[in-house]
């Protein structure tokens, strides 16, 4: 056939074509190449005589030059979309190429079979291009594939022999998803491009089920090992998916089904939710890297749980995460809170665990603000036993001895609020000595005790806050001074200070109006390492 083409075709610009095929990086402009490819495409569409020119396009599609490939992709999309439109692709079970030549097909059918084969090879090449090293190529390939998918949806390539069947290019989508969720390269850019298409309800529905299948397949193979790149890709794709909150919002479809559109699964919100849920659960049941845990937990409460049909299915995952300890526990709190608050989850020893995740690191992690916000919510209940509240206050105070000033500005009002809410905790700040126990005692509080009921916090006092009155930052010292007098009845608003950064703290002093006189050191400075106590000079020398 190729030979036939070279003889029979009316060649309009042979020199140019040769140029393109022989030396792509040659000085001829990209524009020329584009025109060239475009003209070929036009010719192919013009008449079946030039059908063989499609090979040229496919050849350019596999070339190395980025621009050429992009042009070719455009041309392909134009040609095959047009063909799909005209229904000039074979419908039904595709016979092999050789078989088609030999079998009793009409010329028309032979052409369609031929074209379908070209179409299939084009799709394969494009799927390969999805993992191309150049983003432009990947992106255009993705767009082209999606156009094909839309075209196929309108004009299905399979026989619709039974009425229950809904036409949707499932295979194509599955293939796209499989390629997107690469095991080796980070596809986050491409996935974010793909997100645009996820606006379409039916596509999203099928993508969700494709992801589930793909995850099951890939993770099943890995046998419990962690695949960071793959899982990252999956997470990126999944976190981009969100289900609309109401059925009436399901309007944007890629493929319109005819009569029984209403009964289509992709048109039902519940099915969406179920698919969404299954997708996530399918992903979460495998072992995840720690960073992935954190990422998931961060978005869990507001972009996963609300979209699930049964959020309680997440209980296992969340409790497991809560048991992990450290920052992950802190983050799991948020999801747990939603479940407890809205879905009636009864979590035994919740407060005990909360008590135990209070470690010095809570003041240093990135999610400090979120943690304290939640802890404030949890401890705002007025039905908590006094010993528990006292234990929390004491533990936080003890931990505050290692906290940076920004955290101290949160934790001090936090403790004060606890004491305000539970006036019987006032003994922590104010315990006038009685006759029988005049002897000053060691701090009876047991820091290592895991059970807040046993830690004897109520017998202690918050000497730590007394210590913090000598803190170097004036704001902290002032906040700590508050314990010298009875606390005011009004609770402090913690949410204002949750997000304070050290830089903001510094700015309070730095950005003051410059009118004030700046006090100066009166001891004459003579040398760099002397002056003050000269501690730097004791351990360091100039050279």
């Amino acid at each position: 056939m190729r030979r036939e083409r070279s003889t029979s075709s009316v060649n309009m610009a042979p020199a140019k074509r040769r140029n393109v095929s022989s030396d792509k990086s040659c000085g001829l402009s990209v524009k020329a190449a584009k025109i060239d490819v475009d003209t070929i495409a036009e010719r192919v569409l013009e008449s079946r005589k030039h059908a063989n020119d499609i090979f040229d396009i496919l050849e350019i599609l596999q070339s190395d030059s980025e621009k050429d490939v992009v042009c070719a992709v455009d041309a392909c999309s134009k040609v095959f979309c047009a063909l799909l439109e005209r229904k000039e692709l074979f419908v039904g079970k595709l016979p092999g190429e050789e078989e088609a030549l030999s079998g009793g097909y009409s010329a028309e059918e032979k052409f369609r079979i031929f074209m379908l084969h070209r179409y299939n090879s084009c799709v394969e090449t494009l799927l390969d291009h999805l993992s191309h090293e150049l983003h432009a190529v990947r992106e255009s390939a993705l767009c082209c594939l999606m156009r094909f998918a839309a075209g196929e949806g309108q004009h299905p390539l399979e026989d619709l022999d039974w009425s229950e069947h809904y036409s949707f290019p499932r295979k194509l989508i599955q293939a796209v998803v499989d390629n997107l969720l690469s095991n080796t390269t980070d596809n986050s850019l491409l996935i974010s491009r793909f997100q645009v298409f996820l606006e379409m309800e039916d596509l999203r529905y099928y993508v969700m089920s494709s992801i589930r299948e793909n995850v099951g397949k890939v993770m099943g193979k890995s046998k419990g090992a962690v695949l960071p790149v793959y899982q990252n890709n999956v997470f990126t794709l999944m976190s981009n998916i969100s289900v609309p909150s109401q059925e009436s919002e399901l309007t944007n479809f890629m493929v319109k089904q005819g009569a029984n559109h209403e009964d289509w699964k992709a048109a039902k919100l519940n099915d969406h939710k179920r698919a969404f849920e299954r997708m996530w659960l399918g992903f979460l049941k495998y072992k995840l890297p720690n960073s992935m845990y954190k990422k998931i937990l961060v978005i869990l409460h507001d972009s996963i749980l609300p979209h699930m049909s049964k959020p309680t299915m997440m209980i296992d995952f969340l409790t497991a995460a809560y048991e992990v300890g450290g920052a992950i526990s802190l983050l799991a709190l948020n999801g747990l809170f939603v479940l407890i608050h809205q879905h009636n989850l009864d979590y035994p020893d919740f407060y005990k665990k909360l008590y135990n995740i209070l470690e010095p690191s809570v003041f240093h992690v990135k999610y400090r603000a979120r943690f304290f916000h939640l802890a404030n919510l949890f401890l705002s209940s007025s039905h908590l036993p006094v010993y528990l509240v006292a234990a929390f206050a004491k533990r936080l105070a003890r931990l505050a001895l290692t906290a940076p000033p920004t955290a101290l500005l949160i934790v001090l009002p936090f403790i004060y609020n606890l004491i305000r809410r539970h006036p019987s905790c006032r003994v922590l700040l104010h315990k006038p000595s009685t006759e029988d126990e005049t002897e000053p005692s060691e701090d009876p509080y047991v820091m290592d005790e895991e059970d807040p009921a046993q830690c004897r916090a109520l017998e202690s006092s918050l000497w730590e806050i007394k210590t913090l009155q000598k803190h170097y930052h004036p704001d902290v010292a002032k906040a700590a001074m508050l314990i010298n007098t009875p606390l005011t009845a009004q609770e402090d608003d913690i949410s204002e200070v949750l997000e304070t950064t050290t830089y903001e703290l510094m700015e309070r002093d730095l950005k003051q109006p410059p009118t004030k006189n700046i006090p100066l050191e009166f001891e004459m400075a003579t040398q760099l390492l002397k002056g003050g106590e000269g501690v730097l000079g004791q351990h360091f020398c100039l050279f």
Partner: protein
Amino acid sequence: MGKPPKKKSLADKVRKTKTSTEIKNNPFEVKINRKKFDVLGRKTKHDVGLPGVSRSKANNKRKETLLKEYKQKNKSNKLIDRRLGEYDAKMDPEDKILQRFTMERQRVHEKKDVYNLNEEEELTHYGQSLAEMEKFNDVVNSDDESEEKGLLSAELTAAHFGGGGLLRKKAPGEEEEGSQRARTRQELIEELIQKSKQEKRERQVQKEEAQELTEKLDQDWKSIQSLMVKKTPKAERIDNPEEKPKLEEYDMMVRELGFDMKVQPSEKMKTPEELAREEREKLQKLEADRLRRMMGDAGEEGVKSQIHMSADDLNDGFILDKHDQKTLAYQDGKWNIEEESAEEGDEEDGDEEESGEEQESDAEENEDEDDDDGEEEKEEDGDEEEEEGSSEEEDGHSDLDSEQESENEETKQEEKDSRVKPVKSLTKEELKAQQEAAKAELPYTFAAPESYSDLRGLLHGHTPDNQRLIVARTQKSNHPSLAVGNKLKLQKLFGFLLEYVGELATRSPPELTTVDKLIPELYALCQMFPDAAGQAVQSVLTDAAHSMEETLEVKGHAAFPTLDMMIYLKVTALLFPTSDFRHPVTTPALLYIGQALTKCPIRSLQDLTTGLGFCCLAVDYVSFSKRFLPELINFLSGTLHMAVEDKAAVGYTVVPPFRPSGKSSDLLKLSSAESQKSWSKKSIPLSDTQHLQLSSELDRDHHRLTCLSTCLGLVERCCQLYKDLTSFTYIFQPIEILLSKHLSTQTLPESLQELSSKILNAIRNAAAPHRRLVFEKKKPIPLKLLTPKIVEVLDYGKKRGSTREEREKERLKHKYKKEFKGALREIRKDSRFLAREKLGEVMKRDDERKRKVRELFGSLATQEGEWKALKRRKRKM
């Protein structure tokens, strides 16, 4: 209707007053208005009322107005008063009379007196003939009376009030002439007048004499004044000694004298003891101030006086502190400048003595020396300022024989330098020689650099000492008192210098010697312009903190700040007090250090060295105020954790940025136990925080041990600092566990083991139990008392607490109400009066009728009687 007549005859007046006093004395006429309270200071107008009088007055008035109106009612004819100018208010009454008189005269002249030949008509005054009055010869002259006002002598009183007694006493001889009584009296009075006139004249003469004396005194004073003040007295005007200008001039002089700098006894020369005491007092005052600021109540105490300025008086040549001030004094009519040099010598002696004293007292030895040097330098600076100032004023008296001021100054600078140097170069003799050589090459004046590159160009290629000298000379030759723009230039110079210091620190290898030399200059500039310096340092801090914040936002952690930042922080601590409760520069700086110690992960020995450097800085910052810095303890315990061999099952938690385990958590583990034997403690060069080059494993081990010893040293220092904190044991708990359980098992050099046992002892000894917390005792709130609140009233009867407009409105309202009521009352009275009048009229009419009727009846009765009599007579007849 017509107004009541204004003019009243004298007689009428007299009668009126008579009756009024009579009435007032008549208790039946007087109505006393009872007062409820006696209010001090209030004048009462209406305490006594005369109802009868006022009623009759009102009645009269009505009769003249209302009644007339009433009578004129329904009457069309009118009485026209054609008297000349009767209703012309503009006309003077005298004019009126005059015109009327002329009119009358004219009329009379025209008609009657056509033939009257120059016959005097009688002139009258108040209806009395003037000719008659002239005969009286009344002597009382109003002018004389006014002259003798206030003069009260026995004679005079006797003459005026004594009646006849005077005559009897005074002129016994004249008594025979009883017939001339009237005349004698006249004479007597004349005599009296003469006497008083004489007295007056005498007084005048006395006054003039006094005046002359004053003038003389004035002139004398002027001559003296010209002696006292160098000013030539103003043009003397003796020829016309006007009193008033003279007086004013004199007053002016007096006042001027009051404000003039008086010649005071010069302050006595201070003995060295006194000087030392003063110095100590000053330091104590500064220290007290520092403590006050440390407690944090400084902000509330209002404006801070700039006491610190006194430490260096270069600012504008003006000295604030009293004891620094040299008073000018005369010595044999000349200024006492010549004595200065000798005095200086004394002072220096004094300083030396003082240093000994101070060492005894409290301060640390090494610093004391520096202090003294500093003080000395300062004093000399001060002296120099004085000299400059005075030499500008009076060239002739300058102690230095120089022609021009600028040169003069330079030489002095040189002199000053050479004066400073001996103190410094006591130890380094060769350095001094080098300096002298270099000084010979350097120019003496420098233009202030306009940009940073200017400064760099200026300092490029000089030795550190010369660089310092250049900066010092730049500063001197651009002193703010010399030209207008110099202040700004020097402020900029501080910024440039700071930048230069940073650049020196970033060079490789860092030129810290130069930085070290430049510190005094930075300090001096900072003392001159605290605000500009503060802002410059603040901007450095802001930039550094901002860049760190940005990296933190992106990555979650940041690299350790470079050496220049460390130098900046150290310089900050040198320039500004670190112990203040809140300080616009040092508080952010300390925050920055804390931030660096928590957010910068430690990945290499170099990082660790930098971190320890920051720890040292942090200890430096809080060493005086003993404030608690959690980040510091965290870092130190984390550092110790790095040296632990066995990371499993530690009994403490490590705080970020340290990790309990991981690749960088073993940084301080020794590779071989042998290396500790060859180790000896030495200081770490600051440049190691930039480029740490450790070629062999042995070197690395040595560096590790040095780091460990630094860390332990800092821990020990912290133990001392924080031993008073209530939670001391819990703060140092991780360190205690580390030292006692983990590091003690490891083989460490002896010195380190000693140090660690010392720390452990300190921690264990400090564990003192505390009492449970109680609130501070509050003053009980006093019960509400029911005694009236007494408010001082300054303006009686006036309403307070409202604005002027409101008060005005209130006043008008009140007035309106009063007027309204009054008007109502008047109308009622009017109508009552009218009714009474009408009734009177009716009664009168009725009476008239009755009378007429009776008359008629009477006449009828007489007629009847006559008729009857006639009839009877007829019958008789």
